[in-house]
């Protein structure tokens, strides 16, 4: 039986004072010896993971060395994005390597999307009870 980590939804207040319940996941991001605790939004509609610029810099990422050529959509389309691989730990689950679109945008949240967070983890949302569960993908 695979390990399962269970988390509660987080009440988030936006700039207008409105409150929404969001599936925000506490993770530890690790890159070349540096580690940072972060809060990632589970975004099933996002094609890719998105790393805010400042977070990548804090991890020791080198913007000039990061893979170029990524084009994002929506509000992020106006910002340059580059690719970077970062290790991610969720709770006590085994670490996985995640590929991020590292954007020059500063105020974007850390987004965990289809490539490749949802390719590495099985996620069940229980919005009715304000919780969600995460387990490693099953390998044959």
């Amino acid at each position, binding site marked *: 039986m695979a390990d399962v980590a269970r988390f509660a939804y987080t009440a988030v207040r*936006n*700039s*207008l004072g409105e409150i929404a319940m969001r599936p925000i996941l506490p993770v530890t991001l690790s890159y070349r010896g540096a580690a940072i605790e972060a809060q990632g939004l589970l*975004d099933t*509609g*996002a*094609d*890719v*993971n*998105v790393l805010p610029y400042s977070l990548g810099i804090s991890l020791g990422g080198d913007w000039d060395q990061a*893979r170029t*050529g*990524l*084009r*994002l*959509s*929506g*509000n*992020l389309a106006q910002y340059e*994005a580059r*690719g970077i*691989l970062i290790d991610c730990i969720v709770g006590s689950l085994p670490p996985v*390597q995640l*590929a*991020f*679109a590292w954007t020059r*945008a500063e105020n*974007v*949240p850390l*987004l965990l*999307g*289809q*490539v*490749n967070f949802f390719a590495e983890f099985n996620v069940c949302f229980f919005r009715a009870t304000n919780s969600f569960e995460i387990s490693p993908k099953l390998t044959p």
Partner: protein
Amino acid sequence: MRIDQMLTDVLKQELDKLNRAEKLRVVQMLVEQLAQEEELLTSHEYEIWSPYDAPGAAAILMDMLEEDRRNNG
């Protein structure tokens, strides 16, 4: 003729005398006034950060992962 119709006609005549830039300033002023009065117009925009349609970026990231697996096992 009703007084409000007279005022409207006078106002229209005066507006017609304005040049293009002056007319634009009047329109801008009126829009700003309406925006302050109407909740609909003053409602804030909501930022949508989710890269909903970015298959090209996804393909590049997949290539990076595959390349890293090949090089590092």
